């Protein structure tokens, strides 16, 4: 009896010591990484942190009216687009879409990509009954499809029509982008890539073709490219009147 409780004590001390080391490492780590301003890979076992907030700046002045590169890249990366043969056009999923708008008064027209705006206070998260719709510490708004019951209240609440409901059985999903019938989904800001220190597929495709209309980065880091770009020139949030403080911002509209 006493022997085993001694054992337990030893194990507890051992555990606490190691936990302390781990906590120390976690406390030091942000300081270490702060010195490098470029995107870096967070260790796989370290949780995302609220020290960062990921965002995308869309410079619509650089968007060509016939360009669809970001949309195609997203489809290929995340496996939507041609995965739902039975659904009609209004039922198919759209994580990102190209929209052309025209100023009612002046006739000035613009093409831009629309996707989840990754709000700081997302209406979809507020209304979700189970907490499946949530905002990750680093600002990415996601659906936990494990606890999504498919009630679609988040789709009613989203001001940007950013979310889709999967209307039929899917096959051959990507391992890094699970999606399935009866649950709601939307742009994940390619969290699986971001977690490895990479940039979202849409941003990568846009710069690969030298359009450079999309800038991805940490909004909390003053020295990041996106923060510098936002500071240098004007940009807007869509539906700024709602006060959602979106992570995606637009220039040129």
């Amino acid at each position, binding site marked *: 009896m006493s022997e085993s409780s001694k054992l337990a004590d030893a194990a507890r001390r051992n555990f606490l010591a190691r936990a302390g080391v781990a906590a120390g490492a976690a406390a030091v780590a942000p300081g270490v990484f702060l010195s490098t301003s470029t995107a870096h890979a967070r260790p796989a076992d370290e949780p995302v942190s609220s020290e960062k907030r990921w965002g995308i700046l869309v410079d619509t002045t650089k968007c060509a009216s016939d360009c669809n590169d970001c949309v195609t890249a997203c489809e290929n990366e995340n496996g939507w687009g041609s995965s739902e043969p039975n659904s009609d056009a209004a039922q198919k999923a759209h994580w990102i879409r190209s929209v052309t708008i025209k100023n009612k008064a002046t006739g000035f027209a613009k093409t831009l990509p629309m996707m989840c705006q990754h709000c700081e206070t997302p209406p979809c998260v507020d209304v979700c009954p189970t907490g499946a719709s949530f905002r990750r510490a680093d600002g990415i708004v996601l659906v936990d499809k494990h606890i999504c019951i498919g009630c679609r209240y988040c789709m009613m609440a989203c001001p940007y029509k950013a979310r889709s409901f999967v209307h*039929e059985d899917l096959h051959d999903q990507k391992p890094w982008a699970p999606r399935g019938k009866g649950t709601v989904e939307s742009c994940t800001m390619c969290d699986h890539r971001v977690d490895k220190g990479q940039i979202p597929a849409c941003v990568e495709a846009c710069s690969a073709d030298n359009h450079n209309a999309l800038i991805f980065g940490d909004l909390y880091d003053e020295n990041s490219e996106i923060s510098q770009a936002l500071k240098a020139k004007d940009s807007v949030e869509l539906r700024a009147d709602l006060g959602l403080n979106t992570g995606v911002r637009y220039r040129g509209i």
Partner: protein
Amino acid sequence: MKLSMNYREIEGSSTGFWILLGGLALVIALAGGATLYMEHEGHYVTGMNNQIVWGMPHVFAIFLIVAASGALNVASIGTVFGKPLYKPLGRLSGLLAIALLLGGLIVLVLDLGRPDRLIVAMTYYNFKSIFAWNIILYNGFLAVTVVYLWMMMERRMNRYYRPAGLVAFLWRLILTTGTGSIFGFLVARQAYDAAIMAPMFVIMSFSYGLAVFILVLMASYNWTRRPLGDAVLLRLKNLLGVYIAAVLYFVLVFNLTNLYATEHHGIERFILLDGGIYTKLFWIVQIGLGSLLPLAMIYHPTIGKSRPAIATAAALVIVGAFAQLYVILIGGQAYPLEIFPGYEVVSSAFFDGQVNSYSPSVWEIALGVGGIALALMIVTIGVRVLRFLPESLEDAAVDPHAKGA
């Protein structure tokens, strides 16, 4: 004023009774089949899509849930406001409330993308979500009403009957406030995002619930050949008239407020003028057939006393109710989201800036009708096995001081 009222189960042995029960069972079976088909295939077989995300099942479900809350109103008037005339109606009122709520909830649950995860809905709660609160409110309503009925029907428990009735009354008001807030709390949509949604739904529940109650009461007394006096019926139909007028008032205030604010002119124009089916449903069915016509019938000096006319008026209120919910729910989603104020959408891969179309599938309608059939089945079986219905509701029985009769 102590009235001794005899409650008795209905006999339930006639051919008509079994035809009714069999018919309802058949409808429920068909609805079950339709649901299995929808769940197996996925929602692509329905008329719902990523633009109109809530469709016909939600119209039925919300009607049933709202009417459930209103159906209990009759009992509340007897218990909380102490009107003796309503007391004999209390048991049926409670039964009807439970039945309608169960019917509505089953439709709501079976339309989920993942109804198999009902347990998740019951175990994971986001308390900022009005939807999560509604799950608690709905379940609580069932429990509160069962207790209320028990206090009403068990002689030894009669002394707790008033507090139980008060709790049920308050719970019901909160419940319908919650249902209305599902729409009131949608900040992004032009058609919703209004605090008045909550009280408007409360008033709508009074009207819908009473209309259903009147029809069920008339049918059950007629089919069982039990006497139903004018004292009860005329009082109920006058009350229905007041509720119809109250709903009209709320609809008027809601639309007037929107008409005043320029940012809401688009949605108002859509519903009131050029929204096609929604405009027609609003003016012809909701306002004309569902409100003004029954009002005129109810308050007409001679027609207002005719039983077929009273039944017709109550049925028209229900027809109007479906139109109203269809316009609020589907019409509100059909009107495009205003994502780029000041801009018009020239082209979009995802129907931005366009009026969204919706044509309900037969499966969705079957599911909704199944919910109604389930509610009626619960009532039918309920009055057959337990003492819900007074043997007589003739004038002398409900109110010894009634004049004439």
